[in-house]
């Protein structure tokens, strides 16, 4: 069956192909992995000043939950890592010493360009991406995976739980599994391999929302809602739907409903560490919150609109939400599947409606070879 044979499968495939355009390409992903391992080894190896504290290195953020979105405009993609040290925070008078020790170790290698960020040291590479390394210690009083993170602005420890968050998000993603398994049992496997739709719907929803955010707040980056807030809102709203289109509509509807119900601003906490308020920046920046609520309500309206459109108008609407190039590339990829069927002599058309198909249905007519002509 071709994806174009039903509205749901065609739109879902188009969205998955758009997300494929947003990923880090294969080559960059391998480069990221190399750099990650290299830095990790430098921090952990026996000669390191951190070695005595049994450092654990692990990713956090979009790469660890499979929702990377390629940079837009000036922003260079950043990869987030944690360097967790086995230390008792009560024995540390000044939390910021964790950052200075991390920085010192990185400087010792002599090859890194470093920047100090509020909660991490940024390793700046000449191209492609930065690595933001967050230093932390376990917070034993908290839920499993809880950390205390030195925060320069606060000059104090701040709570976090990246491992817990990753586990929570993956748990939400997995809500689709029962439906997938049921469908896999109900449908005989096709002879050809599956296409772009391998990725679970919730991950695609997050990628699309982040991309919308990048497009919408280009001119006003200070008002752009941060990724972890959007990811958490999407994670909470997800109910296991197998269609990425419907899951996106569900997410937008639920987020807007939450905004309308809230007495003040909505509060988005780390689901695995209630002490961590991901959305705390809205307290100092009410204009950003207003820009977020207006934006997400507009997105909701536009997404409803997308579902009512057909033909090139639909593609134009997707372009305005997610970008011209990625949408157009996705459209071309989708048509390519039809061209493949055509070239293989497998293309058919349903007589009554002209719908192109590859299935051997009773009223489907084979499409004979032809060459378009004319100017």
């Amino acid at each position: 069956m071709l994806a174009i044979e039903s509205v749901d499968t065609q739109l879902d495939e188009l969205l998955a192909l758009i997300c494929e355009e947003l990923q880090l390409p294969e080559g960059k992903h391998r480069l990221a992995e190399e750099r990650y391992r290299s830095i990790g080894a430098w921090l952990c190896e026996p000669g390191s000043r951190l070695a005595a504290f049994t450092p654990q290195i692990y990713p956090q953020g979009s790469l660890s939950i499979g929702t990377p979105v390629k940079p837009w405009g000036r922003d260079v993609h950043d990869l987030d890592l944690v360097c967790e040290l086995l230390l008792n925070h009560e024995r540390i008078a000044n939390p910021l010493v964790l950052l200075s020790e991390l920085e010192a170790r990185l400087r010792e290698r002599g090859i890194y360009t470093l920047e100090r960020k509020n909660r991490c040291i940024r390793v700046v590479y000449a191209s492609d991406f930065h690595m933001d390394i967050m230093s932390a210690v376990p917070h034993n009083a908290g839920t499993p995976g809880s950390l205390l993170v030195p925060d320069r602005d606060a000059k104090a420890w701040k709570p976090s739980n990246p491992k817990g968050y990753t586990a929570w998000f993956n748990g939400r993603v997995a809500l689709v599994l029962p439906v997938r398994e049921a469908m896999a049992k109900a449908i005989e496997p096709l002879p050809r391999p599956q296409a772009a739709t391998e990725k679970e719907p919730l991950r695609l929803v997050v990628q699309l929302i982040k991309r919308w955010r990048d497009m919408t707040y280009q001119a006003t980056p200070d008002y752009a809602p941060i990724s972890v807030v959007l990811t958490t809102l999407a994670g909470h709203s997800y109910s296991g739907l197998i269609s990425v289109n419907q899951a996106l509509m569900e997410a937008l509807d639920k987020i807007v409903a939450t905004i309308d119900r809230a007495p003040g601003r909505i509060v988005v906490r780390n689901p695995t560490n209630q002490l961590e308020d991901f959305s705390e920046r809205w307290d100092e920046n009410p204009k950003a919150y207003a820009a977020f609520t207006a934006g997400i309500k507009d997105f909701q309206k536009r997404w409803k609109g997308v579902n009512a459109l057909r033909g090139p108008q639909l593609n134009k609407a997707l372009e305005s939400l997610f970008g011209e190039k990625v949408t157009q590339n996705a459209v071309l990829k989708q048509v390519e599947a039809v061209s493949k069927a055509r070239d293989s002599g497998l293309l058919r058309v349903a007589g009554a409606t002209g719908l192109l198909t590859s299935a051997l249905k009773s009223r489907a007519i084979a499409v004979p070879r032809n060459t378009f002509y004319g100017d």
Partner: protein
Amino acid sequence: MDLYRCNKASWTGQLRPASLSAEYTVRVSYKWEGKPRVSVLSPTLHAREDGQPIPHVYDGPELCLYLPKAREWDPSMQLSETILPWTSLWLLYYEAWQSTGVWTGGGVHPGGVKIAEKKS
């Protein structure tokens, strides 16, 4: 009785090549032993905003669905098994071309200039 009219037939119907496509009203007119002429009544076909003209049409515009020299079509064939499926296919590529500026359905221009076909 008008012999001319007796030998002429036309079919008008709706085609939607892909589920997300628009629905096109198409007319095929056919004179006995003549060539079938295919036109899109609605929505109106138009050039791209960047000025690119519609590919693979004759004046009209009428759709150019086959290569006359290659005998891909001849009057012995059923229109419903040739012209109509090719029209659907043409509309699919037309929509993608409207959105992207790229025609990936292959084809040839008069004078034998072959358009680079999309690799399969």
